[in-house]
């Protein structure tokens, strides 16, 4: 029975722990969004409707650098950062099962954390519990803390006095850090950063960040510095 299933209980505990920890980022998102020039309503709607942290930070980061003129670049940046959610959804869709209203909500809640917690569980029932508990805790927590952050940011005034511009850079670094475990992503990160900075004086704000994606596509397609996929034949080297 669900209440006494230890796998489900463990999934629920993981979901709550991850959800509460991640929800705290919402304070920094809310404050930085207001510092980037969004109003409190726009900040909260972004967390309610977009609900994927990396894309939200990217959108406000590009808008902060380039204003409304950088709108198209902001949309493309946030969308490119959301592509990984399509891959997570391949894993979460079979966990969620059939029924379109449920699948639509599950799609909205398919993010780094729900994919990680649900796929880490051993039984189908625990995977389902892990997905829905993590999603619900983060959805409520992320939106409440976004509002708190936006209200705080609104009180702060000039974001530079409080170092909020540096906080935005640190927030991106925090999202990047766990992905730098092997040589290939480290090289792509350095290449992407160099491309963006070198192009900054020459092209409008927002576009240098998009240009960095080219580095990823070239390295990804050629698999330069990558491990051989297990389906390929192992070479003599």
């Amino acid at each position, binding site marked *: 029975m669900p209440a006494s299933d230890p796998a489900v209980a463990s999934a629920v505990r993981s979901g709550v722990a991850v959800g509460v920890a991640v929800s705290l980022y919402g304070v920094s998102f809310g404050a930085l969004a207001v510092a980037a020039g969004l109003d409190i309503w726009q900040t909260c709607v972004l967390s309610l409707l977009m609900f994927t942290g990396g894309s939200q930070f990217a959108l406000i980061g590009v808008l902060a650098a380039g204003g409304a003129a950088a709108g198209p670049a902001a949309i493309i940046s946030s969308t490119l950062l959301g592509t990984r959610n399509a891959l997570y959804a391949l894993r979460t869709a079979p966990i969620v099962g059939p029924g379109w209203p449920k699948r639509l909500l599950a799609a909205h809640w398919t993010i780094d954390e729900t994919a990680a917690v649900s796929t880490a569980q051993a039984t189908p029932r625990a995977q389902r519990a892990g997905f829905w508990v993590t999603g619900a805790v983060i959805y409520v927590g992320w939106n409440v803390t976004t509002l708190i952050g936006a209200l705080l940011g609104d009180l702060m005034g000039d974001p530079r006095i409080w*170092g909020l511009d540096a906080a935005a850079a640190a*927030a991106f670094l925090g999202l990047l850090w766990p992905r730098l475990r092997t040589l290939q992503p480290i090289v792509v990160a350095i290449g*992407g950063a160099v491309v*963006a900075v070198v192009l900054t004086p020459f092209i409008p704000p927002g576009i240098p960040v998009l240009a960095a994606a080219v580095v990823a596509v070239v390295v990804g397609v050629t698999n330069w510095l990558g491990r051989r996929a297990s389906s390929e034949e192992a070479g003599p080297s």
Partner: protein
Amino acid sequence: MTTWNVILIASVLALGLKLVGFVVPARVLDRPTPARTANLITVALLAALVAVQTVGAGQGVVVDARVPAVLVAAGLFALRVPFVIVVIAAAAVAALLRLPGWMS
């Protein structure tokens, strides 16, 4: 393009991408090259955003209090300090360096 347009268009696209994984058969996307490239795009964009947020100023490049703040953040992330604490620490470093007025 208004800020509201940007927010709504980007939000619809974000949900659309998540739905792709619910409607496309896994065998189409679940191959090494698309999966690897999608992950590396995330890495490249986040790294570019770190760089631009650290030294960008409109269409210029400047070294100011953000640089030491981000270096401190990198050290704290390496020590596995939680995200929110690192972000607050980075803000504090930049704010304190600006206080005496010897860094912009």
